[in-house]
């Protein structure tokens, strides 16, 4: 399983052809595959979002039937979360962690290969359901019973797809933990790790603790449907609300699984372009760890309206509000990093600043929703849709974009087209706000989420939202163009350092880096450690 280092004796012989990718045990190639897969899934999920926005452009049903509309919202979420966001994070981890800690490769390169190659199969299972009697999953990505049990032949495919995705992420997480724990270069102590590596270790532990819970919950669904158990069936003595508790016990840590790597990326980017060390390194690590810890005690804020005892509602309200404290600490630390720096605004920095502003907006609406009595109004409306899209799109996806632009010159050896990058940022930022900000208004005004049609008072805003949606979708093609140009080597040659003020081991390697990152481990001191 784990012969990373043994492989390195064979120096720089690169396998070629399709075998290079199919049988790859190289952290960079696997990282590339993860990122390409994520980009493809980003467009698959995005296409579904476009269907949703087209249908919601005006009242009445124009393009799809309600059942298919529900499939669109359900599969859009599953594809984006498990197909686009998580693989993007793992892809960046694969590429960067060995280079950042001075290791030759990941600890378990063959398992690394397997955890990637499970993904295309899992998504084939999931997307095949569109062609089955009964159609694709349409009960929401949260898969609440009893509704999800009404799904037709696609049901076991949904369950096994989720199982596979869980196995893949757990294997990825194990690999990352083993790499960071066992393969750090001499002198690379834990408190010298770059913040991106820190956020990923914490994420990996969250994955190991929470993915089995999701797998357990969907297994219980499977046995409920086919083997006569009654975990969630009230008529058989079960409890349909139990599923919601278990699901969100996974689901809330999952939120931080998605967002923490993005926090890690901007903690690398902001110091570089502020030409200043990261402010409050230690407090950043502790804040990340406390967010991760608290994330296991707030799950019920996703289901306040389910009818809990008063004490439960109070507990989850206070716990939820308390998460604002470490999150605030992180925002303030990033602010202090920029303060009295000497900033330049290349594309990665622009996207990172985008995260600071717009993730904060999502944080504010999140705080509002944490207040239980008011959440009784907000729950399951477009206000919620606005909130989680603000944290996911300009929070998490912008972080990934920042990372891609930041490291693309390192990966490919050529600078990306700065003009196109900036165009990508500005078009995305304008359209993403046109897309998601008005959702706050229609949510407050009373439009529930997951409906294919609405009363005519919501028409105006929905049209603006749809236009923003189409514009945002189209703007992402610029990213593809930028990446293709770099991959084909079109652009100015990048130096090893790439960015004037970049610190860290990855910048000591050539651009592009050698096939095996560090064959001789570098010696790390305070001076060469994190920025």
């Amino acid at each position, binding site marked *: 399983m784990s012969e990373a280092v043994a492989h390195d004796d064979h120096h720089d012989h690169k396998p070629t052809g399709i075998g290079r990718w199919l049988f790859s045990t190289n952290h960079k190639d696997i990282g590339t595959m993860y990122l390409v897969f994520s980009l493809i899934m980003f467009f698959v999920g995005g296409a579904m979002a476009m269907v949703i926005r087209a249908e919601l452009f005006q009242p009445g049903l124009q393009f799809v039937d309600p*059942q298919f509309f529900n499939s669109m919202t359900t599969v859009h979420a599953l594809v984006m979360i498990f197909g686009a966001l998580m693989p993007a994070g793992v892809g960046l981890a694969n590429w960067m962690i060995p280079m950042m800690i001075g290791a030759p490769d990941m600890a378990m390169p063959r398992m690394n290969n397997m955890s990637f190659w499970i993904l295309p199969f899992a998504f084939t299972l999931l997307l095949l359901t569109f062609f089955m009697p009964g159609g694709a999953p349409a009960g929401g990505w949260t898969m609440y019973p009893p509704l999800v049990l009404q799904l037709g032949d696609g049901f076991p495919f949904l369950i096994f797809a989720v199982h596979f995705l869980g196995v893949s992420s757990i294997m990825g997480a194990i690999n990352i933990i083993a790499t960071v724990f066992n393969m750090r270069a001499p002198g690379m102590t834990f408190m010298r790790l770059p913040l991106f590596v820190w956020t990923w270790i914490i994420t990996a532990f969250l994955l190991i603790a929470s993915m089995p819970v999701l797998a357990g919950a969907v297994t219980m669904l499977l046995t409920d449907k086919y083997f006569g158990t009654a975990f969630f069936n009230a008529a058989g003595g079960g409890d349909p609300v139990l599923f919601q508790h278990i699901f969100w016990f996974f689901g809330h840590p999952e939120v931080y699984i998605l967002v923490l790597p993005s926090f890690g990326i901007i903690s690398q980017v902001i110091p570089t372009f502020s030409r200043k060390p990261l402010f409050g390194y230690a407090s950043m690590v502790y804040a990340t760890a406390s967010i991760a810890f608290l994330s296991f005690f707030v799950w019920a804020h996703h289901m306040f309206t389910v009818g809990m005892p008063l004490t439960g*509602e109070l507990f989850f309200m206070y716990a939820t509000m308390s998460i604002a404290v470490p999150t605030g600490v992180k925002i303030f630390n990033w602010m202090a990093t920029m303060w009295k720096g000497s900033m330049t605004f290349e594309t990665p920095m622009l996207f990172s600043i985008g995260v600071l502003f717009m993730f904060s907006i999502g944080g504010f609406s999140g705080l509002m929703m944490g207040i239980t009595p008011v959440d009784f109004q907000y729950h399951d409306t477009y206000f919620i849709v606005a909130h989680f899209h603000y944290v996911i799109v300009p929070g998490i996806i912008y972080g990934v974009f920042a990372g891609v632009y930041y490291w693309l010159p390192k990966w490919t050896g050529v600078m990306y087209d700065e003009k196109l990058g900036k165009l990508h940022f500005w078009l995305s930022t304008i359209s993403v706000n046109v897309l998601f900000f008005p959702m706050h208004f229609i949510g407050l005004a009373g439009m529930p989420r997951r409906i294919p049609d609405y009363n005519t008072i919501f028409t105006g805003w929905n049209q603006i939202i749809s236009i923003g949606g189409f514009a945002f979708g189209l703007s992402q093609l610029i990213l593809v163009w930028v990446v293709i140009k770099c991959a084909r080597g079109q652009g100015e040659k990048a130096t090893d350092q790439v960015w004037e003020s970049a610190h860290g081991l990855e910048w000591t390697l050539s651009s592009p880096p050698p096939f095996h990152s560090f064959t001789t481990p570098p010696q790390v001191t305070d001076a060469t450690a994190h920025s």
Partner: protein
Amino acid sequence: MTVSKTKRVVLGAITLCLTLACGLAFAESMSWNLTEGVTPTSKKVYDLHMIILYIVTAIGIAVFAVMCWSIYFHRKSRGAIAEQFHHSTFAEITWTIIPIIILIVMAIPATKTLIFMEQTGDAEMTIKVTGYQWKWKYDYLEEDISFFSTLKEDSNEARQRYASTRPEDVENYLLDVDNYVVVPVDTKIRILTTASDVNHAWWVPDLGWKRDAIPGFINDNWTFIEKEGVYRGQCAELCGKDHGFMPIVVKAVSKEDYAAWVQEMKGNARVAAATPVEEIAVEELLMKGKRLYNSNCAACHMPEGEGVDGLFPALAGSAIANGEAEGFAHQILNGKNMMPPFKDQLSDTDIASVMTYVRNSWGNAADAVQPAAVNAAR
């Protein structure tokens, strides 16, 4: 360089003006904020919402102002030279303590409101709300009144694909029902929510809360409406295909009008029970059947009886629908798999009408069914 900068500023200003103009043009027809509602709860919730909105807006303005200041003044192009500080225990403690204080300030009114909302005791009347796919059933427990409430016909027609009517021409599109929930004002009403098939959520924004309706559970809520009027809401928990099409309409009337309504409802029930089952003309059955089919059956079996492949069987050409009347009636009365039993929802005449309609539509050709036949199958 200066020219392009001026150009950019002008362009920016034009864009901003256009956006504002569009915004204002739309603003007339648009809603922006939470409703204040018509109950003590909804008013407390609205106030709490506004307080927190103001607090987070203030924090947002402060934080964004600092960031913008920094972005503007601490940039390399303005000749800023980076300082190298990277730690301050004092700053860390400050920006931990201040948010904690703000959170406590928010938590106090939130806790008070929550405790107020959970006092479901000493209600003067109780209504049990049951969610069905995709309609609501209301039981007035003290009055022995019980009825279903489904999407109104004109909305239901306009919401179909290739519909001949436009949503814009329907009054209260998707927010209107056949039977309103009539309640008295200035009365503490206990509202129990539950469901018969999958999870739903009962939500009327003007009452200030929503609550899930879950099979096997009964959730306890209350309301106290202070103003007469018609208040509209929707199901708020995804419940399958027609989740978007099961609205809620609450009509609050004076206590006297409510008493009169109760009498009328009870009278109607007696008349219905007393009417002897008799032969009904086929034309009448067909007409009534079409209306009932569209509000009760078309959601799954589709308006043209073609069903949904793999989920809901087609009725056009169906062996059961065209077969013996007794077997068909049995299926409707008792339900099967996902299909709910209709024996408590529809009368013999209603079921006979639907059966007659189905047996004589979309190419089906079987004989009409009379209420007596349905009664025999019960």
